[in-house]
């Protein structure tokens, strides 16, 4: 059976059969593969005992700044000799011609080479040529390297190299690891042309693509809606724009209540509902307000149009119109608060609210539905605390333990509609209500700490969430 070779392997084998011992870089040029592909191919061949990888260190030398200067103008000692060609010179004269450290180096090396003699005068020393200066091994080495680089093997006089290396900035020594790839005997005799192929580089990187998807917040909304339906609740829809009558008055919120003010509620400019409710509904609600809150209820206040501040206005209107004997219904949708937008507050968010009327309408039942709801969301550590809502009594809130945050988080609220809410609308039985904001739950699910992310429609998040 012939071996199956990847195209990359095949190209490397063929190239090495022609020219043995190549570096990966050479192979990359000769095979026209990327360096990463070559490296992968070599690794595969090595594992199959077809390629041998020799690792060695390659040391090369080239000239540094001083070396290059000397190549052009001569070493400092040579410069000195050239100056002395015509006549001897004093230290002062030499010093002014050879600036800086050059002076000491030139004198020391020329003396060591036996090129000069120094006579001391009263004030200065006089330098003159002693014998004819011949080319030194260092100078030969400098010309050998020239403007290129040479390998260690090419260095003819190691002692001269040692001397030059000891002088600053003359020689730059670099070392790199070198891989040489050669083929084993088995590989050399392989006939790659008859081995089957068609294989591809299965480990190569591919471009990212993104799945089209529904919005993560919409997924959470759908999941919660599904749970409500499973718990026996039917969905009703209602408008986001509502009269103050249904948003506030029908829910027993007095007309001078701070929650009704512009700073908490969005009122619609120049829009009002002429007939927000039936005459008897208006009459009964108004007298409940007058009697219990002791103020003068005004129809005009109730006609002002608002963006609903909760979905309760939809459920209460449904109850008042349908007066069901036994029902579980829910309403889900956007609600609005005139707040400053921040990482924890939006002006517009989704709320769900379910109500139960008829059988099994005790506080224990309400708590039982909650517990089941959270269980279906995978939240099992819950407890109930008392709280206050203007239109329910008693009112509870659920606290859910979040393992990741290590603390209790307030989620849905619940309660029984106050008789002051239900009686004027002709509802005689107790009505259980429960619900809350959906973004809070979605934030836990997607581990977000900024609620605005849901509405930013940031593609990098939508594509990866």
């Amino acid at each position, binding site marked *: 059976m012939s071996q199956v070779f990847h195209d990359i392997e095949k190209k490397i084998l063929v190239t090495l059969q022609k020219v043995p011992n190549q570096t990966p870089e050479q192979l990359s040029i000769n095979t026209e593969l990327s360096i990463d592909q070559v490296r992968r191919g070599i690794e595969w061949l090595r594992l199959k005992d077809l390629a041998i990888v020799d690792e060695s260190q390659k040391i090369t030398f080239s000239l540094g700044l001083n070396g290059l200067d000397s190549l052009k103008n001569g070493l400092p000692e040579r410069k000195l000799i050239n100056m002395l060609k015509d006549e001897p010179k004093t230290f002062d004269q030499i010093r002014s011609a050879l600036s800086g450290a050059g002076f000491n180096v030139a004198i020391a090396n020329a003396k060591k080479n036996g090129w000069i003699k120094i006579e001391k005068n009263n004030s200065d020393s006089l330098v003159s040529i002693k014998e004819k200066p011949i080319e030194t091994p260092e100078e030969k080495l400098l010309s050998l390297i020239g403007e290129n680089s040479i390998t260690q093997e090419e260095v003819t006089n190691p002692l001269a190299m040692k001397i030059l290396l000891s002088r600053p900035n003359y020689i730059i020594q670099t070392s790199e690891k070198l891989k040489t790839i050669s083929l084993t005997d088995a590989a050399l005799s392989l006939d790659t042309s008859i081995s089957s192929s068609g294989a591809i580089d299965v480990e190569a990187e591919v471009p990212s693509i993104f799945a089209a998807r529904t919005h993560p917040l919409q997924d959470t909304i759908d999941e919660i809606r599904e749970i409500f339906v499973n718990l026996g609740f039917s969905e009703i829809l209602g408008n986001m724009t509502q009269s103050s009558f249904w948003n506030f008055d029908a829910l027993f919120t007095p007309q001078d209540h701070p929650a009704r003010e512009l700073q908490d509620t969005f009122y619609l400019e120049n829009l009002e509902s002429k007939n927000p409710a039936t005459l008897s509904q208006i009459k009964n609600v108004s007298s409940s307000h007058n009697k219990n809150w*002791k103020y003068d209820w005004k129809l005009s206040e109730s006609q002002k149009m608002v963006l609903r501040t909760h979905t309760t206005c939809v459920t209460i209107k449904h109850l008042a119109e349908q007066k069901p004997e036994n029902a579980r219904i829910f309403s889900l949708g956007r609600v609005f608060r005139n707040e400053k937008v921040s990482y924890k507050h939006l002006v517009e968010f989704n709320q769900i609210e379910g109500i139960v009327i008829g059988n099994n309408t005790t506080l224990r039942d309400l708590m039982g539905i909650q517990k089941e709801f959270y269980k279906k969301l995978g939240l099992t550590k819950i407890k109930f605390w008392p709280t206050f809502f203007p239109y329910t009594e008693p009112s509870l809130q659920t606290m859910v333990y979040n393992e990741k945050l290590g603390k209790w988080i307030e989620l849905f609220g619940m309660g029984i509609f106050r008789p002051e809410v239900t009686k004027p609308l002709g509802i005689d039985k107790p009505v259980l209500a429960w619900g809350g904001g959906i973004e809070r739950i979605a934030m836990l699910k997607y581990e977000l700490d900024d609620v605005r992310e849901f509405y930013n429609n940031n593609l990098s998040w*939508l594509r990866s969430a």
Partner: protein
Amino acid sequence: MPVVELNINRIRKLVSGNVTRKQILDVLPFLGLDIESEVGDEIRIEYSPNRPDYSTDYGIATGLQGLLGIKKGIQKTYIKKKGKFAIKVDSTVTKIRPYLTGIVATNGKLDDVAIKQLMNMQEDLHFGIGRKRKKSSIGLHDADKISFPLTYTTVSREHKFTPLNSSTEQSIDEILANTEVGQNYGYVIGDSKNVPIIFDSEQNTISFPPIINSALTTVTSNTRNILIEVTGIDKEATEDMLSVVVSILQTAGFEFNELKITGNKNSTPQLKEKIMIYDPKFTSEIIGIEMSPSNMVTCLKKCRLDASVKGKKITCVIPRYRFDIFSPMDLTEEIVLGFGIANIEPKLSPSTTIGQKNDVTIKTKLISQTAVGLGFLEAMNSSLTSKKVLYEMTKRDSSEIISVLDSKSQEHKILRDSLLPSLLDNLSKNIHESYPQKLFETGVVFSKGKPIHESINLAVIIAYKDTNYSEIKAIMQSLLRTNFKINSETKTSKNNELFSIGRHADIFVNENKIGEIGEIDSNILENFRIRTSVVGFEIKLSGLIFD
């Protein structure tokens, strides 16, 4: 929700010596109080606006004593009848601020922490039941600086006195113009020529309700006797407010002396308890637990109410400051609190109804599924948007604009009448992301009707360099054919600045126009800084796939 700052050691002392820190922290939530933060011994607590008595540690301590079983039942308030304290209400106040009530708290002592808490309590009361001081407002005064009897009357705006926290005399007009309280609450007085004022018998100004007290009667830690006066436009509301302050000062150790009030429909407050007789069966039915009437009585007493069983009924005595209790339902809540919510076992009864999604939800979801199948990512944008995105950058007709009043956010002022502008805005914020970008959104749009019409729209948008009209038309027709078998056609339409000339159309189904489709005009794309081709369409789903 209002917030109160407490020191845990102070609370422990007020509740009783040997209650532990943990006991207090555990029980606070069961009074309906949320612990907002806890740093060392200082805790911040959110309380409900219906329980203003929880605005100080005195009130909270009273509640804790009940649930912890340390002290139960009502704290009875005794008011000494005889005394020198009196006030006469002049008929001139009738049109401005007709009612005044009050009392004198004696032989007590407040430290600086308590005074600070009382000031905060006043502000919370002013905001909540006082409706920003309009309905009722309080003033607390050092009674020893006052010569009784007092007069509640009106003065002209030229009248001068030295207001609280000031050392110089100022006229009423100056106070209204120059002080923060004057600027904030001057609206209550409006442009009335004369303003309410309280004088003592030596014609010293005591208070200028509902704006500011006089510096003369400043309450300090040396004050032993306090005059509490509450003025307002509703008699009941003024007494509500008074009763809360009395309950708090009573816990702080004060005694009470009557302030005799006469004149002009005003009368001396009695702060009488309310008696409510009710059938305990009602509570058992609401909670879902058979509970004996005597057990309920115990629960009510733990909530600092008084109660006794009489025959088959419970007689409950409710202190004046618990004006949040309207009906037996409120008493049921008190019983739940006294019993302890943690002691009520949740019960899952089988549902006798079958749940069902709304038709609109089901069909909108079908459309979304098809859009995802065609490779589109769902976007979600706010219904409240900005004029800039909705009309200016898209050069759309804004004659039917629907605005909200006084939005706190520039980006959320206008109700959208179309989904496409926000999708263009989404593309604009994602120009650094890889293309093609394909988005869709389904959502409610608003138009003026009776008074407002809401319908559900679908908008789809494609952005990349080679996209064109044919591609978006194919997408649009596929979306309507899949599941719904709706055949649509496109007809040349009159020019529209959103789209390129000659490259847009109206979408028709059965001779009815349901939307628009086309290549977005390059000027519009420039406004959104989008540097590639964009095509899109928007149709009204309401009336097409559901009613």
